[in-house]
């Protein structure tokens, strides 16, 4: 019987992800008995080599966790340590951090949409092979991505592993000419982003909605990047200190990335989780755009993640425009820092989801120990659950190629940034 066919499919890499990874699926008839998202992390052991390092070196080293969201890792540690040292930044520095953060979201989301996701929708192997037939789509994407990079560079010197951010503030304030140039770039990118949202709203999206828990920061006044409570869709509101009470990590044989569960259950972090939790706080103009384009949040269709990213790009550009409309800030670039011993923790929203950091420092501000939980290990269990549900609904009787492509698309919705924990993933289907 065709349904009972045995299939052993092995694809070495799932492409168009940040980092490299694999999937293993074994099925007999209609029953999946194994479905693993495999992350073979060449362990980089950040939590160990940070031990003994000074608080001043932590942000530079942490950046290297991920090339696409270096600032998120820098900032989470910086904020935690500033809390411990009782440093309260003045308003203009808080705003500059927000501006840089927005830049990282714009850059990362745009990279995801254009290089990683869109080829799925337009039927191409890669963005590079799309260049001839859809130059305007790619150019629009690059314009937005460059704008994000420019904002990071304005404040950090470069967009990958920026050097501007430090405990106590920044190395220096932006120069007027660069400030003005960034404003112009943002002004030009905003209409492109509105166009992008309209375009993503016109896509025919598959729908494999099902019940799941989502988790993000939530703030009463401002769309959360950095600050707010950890908020879960099943009713919890937690302070960062309570993170370890509810979120637990464990190791499994098939993956080097840890699995993180919320009270024993898988959960989603990332743009869709954030937008689901914070749609009420969007500025009216953006709510209007969401409505006009026929989009509805909260929702539980992971394929709408591309739209959630587009909405967040508009939000980020709109806020950046407001911040840059102010005069180029003057005053101190940083506050004096006096190290203190103790424990600290913090959460921020990286482009791909919430990050948690915990540090114990000695009285010179050297790391005694630390814990860093990236978004990917939090999403890993959720991706597997989604695949189990969606693949069955899609139909195990599909060809291996169709199944493989479908699984890849599902995984790409999550935009797992695999190298933050890992690097090597393999796709394997065994049908008995």
């Amino acid at each position, binding site marked *: 019987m065709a349904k009972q066919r045995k299939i052993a499919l092995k694809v*070495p*890499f799932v*492409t*168009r992800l*940040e*980092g*490299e990874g694999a999937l293993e699926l074994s099925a007999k008839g209609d029953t999946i008995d194994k479905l693993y998202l495999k992350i*073979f*992390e*060449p*362990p*980089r*052991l*950040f*939590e*160990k*080599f940070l031990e*003994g390092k*000074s608080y001043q*070196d932590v942000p*530079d*080293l942490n950046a*290297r966790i*991920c*090339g*696409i969201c*270096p600032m998120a890792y820098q900032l989470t540690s910086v904020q935690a340590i500033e809390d411990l040292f009782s440093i309260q930044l003045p308003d203009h520095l808080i705003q500059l951090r927000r501006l840089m953060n927005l830049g990282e979201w714009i850059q990362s989301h745009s990279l995801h949409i254009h*290089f*990683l996701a869109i*080829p799925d929708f337009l039927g*191409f*192997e*890669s*963005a*590079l092979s799309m*260049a001839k037939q859809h130059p305007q789509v790619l*150019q629009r994407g*690059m314009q937005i*991505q*460059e704008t994000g*990079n420019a904002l990071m560079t304005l404040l950090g*010197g*470069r*967009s*990958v*592993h920026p*050097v501007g951010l*430090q405990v106590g503030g*920044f*190395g*220096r304030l932006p120069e007027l000419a660069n400030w003005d140039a960034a404003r112009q770039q943002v002004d030009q990118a905003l209409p492109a982003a509105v166009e992008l949202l309209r375009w993503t709203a016109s896509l025919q999206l598959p729908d494999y909605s099902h019940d799941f828990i989502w988790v993000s920061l939530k703030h009463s006044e401002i769309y959360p990047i950095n600050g707010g409570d950890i908020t879960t869709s099943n009713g919890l509101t937690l302070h960062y200190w309570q993170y370890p009470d509810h979120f637990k990590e464990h*190791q*499994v*044989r098939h993956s*080097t990335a840890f699995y993180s569960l919320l009270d024993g259950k898988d959960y989603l972090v990332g743009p869709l989780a954030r937008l689901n939790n914070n749609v009420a706080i969007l500025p009216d103009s953006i709510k209007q755009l969401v409505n006009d384009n026929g989009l509805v949040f909260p929702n539980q269709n992971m394929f709408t993640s591309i739209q959630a990213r587009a909405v967040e790009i508009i939000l980020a550009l709109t806020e950046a425009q407001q911040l840059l409309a102010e005069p180029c800030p003057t005053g101190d670039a940083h506050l004096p820092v006096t190290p203190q011993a103790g424990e600290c923790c913090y959460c921020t929203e990286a482009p791909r989801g919430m990050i948690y950091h915990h540090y114990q420092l000695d009285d010179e501000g050297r790391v005694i120990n630390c814990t860093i939980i990236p978004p990917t290990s939090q999403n890993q269990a959720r991706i597997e659950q989604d695949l189990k549900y969606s693949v069955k609904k899609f139909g195990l009787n599909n060809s291996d190629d169709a199944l493989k492509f479908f699984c890849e698309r599902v995984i790409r919705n999550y935009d797992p*940034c695999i*190298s*933050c924990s890992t*690097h*090597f993933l393999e796709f394997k289907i065994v049908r008995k």
Partner: protein
Amino acid sequence: MSQQVNPTKLTVALHKLTSCSGCQLAFLNQGATLLELVELVDFKHFIEAGLNHPDEKVDLAFVEGSVSTPEDLKRAQQIRQNSKLVVSIGACATSGGVQALRNMADGNAWMQAVYTRPDFIATLATSTGVAEHIKVDFELWGCPITVRQVNHFIRQLLFGARPRPEAEKLCMECKRRQLVCVMVTQQAPCLGPVVRTGCGALCPAFGRACYGCFGPSEQPNCHSLANRFAGLGLVPREIAQRFASIHSHSKPFRKESHHWQAIEVKEIE
């Protein structure tokens, strides 16, 4: 670099070993020039961009990431076999990257500390640059490498020129930019005098000391700089830490770091 490369359409692969993927962004962050680049070269393998043909023979293979697992090692060897030219890109591929900090410690103990089941994970005791394992034709240093480095390198090849490494000291670039020296004015322990140029002297421009993400320059006099740091008031442990950062496993930095690590500070009662 003796091999002949077809100057019209260079075939290119981009491989990733143990890394943060940041150096690949020197390709994906190019903006409009990426569209020009794909006119000039033919990407065959570049997973993140969607091209998955790891075993195809190419003219030029860029390798990002360090060798830190048995799998990395196997792939490095395959890359060598399949490529006319092998170019390592970034700190990870040139000197083992930040993850090489484990080389100075007991890597096994670290694994035990981080993982409850380290036996689930195949890893080498050290993280090392690609050239420690296979012949590498050219190295682009930097964490991350820049768009300019990549394009300059490719254009040189296309023009049939022999690419030359940029290895002059960061200090020179800093002076050319007329930046204020952070070591002289702030007593900041800047690695600029022994670090390779390429970043545009970013950190001094931000009023801070260079921490060495472009690796050792030509003829670095690390020892004399380290003595200067001691003069600025750094204790040996702090001097060792300065050199034990992004390029801790590069020969000159490793040597200096080990030297100062071995010195105990004796408290005078």
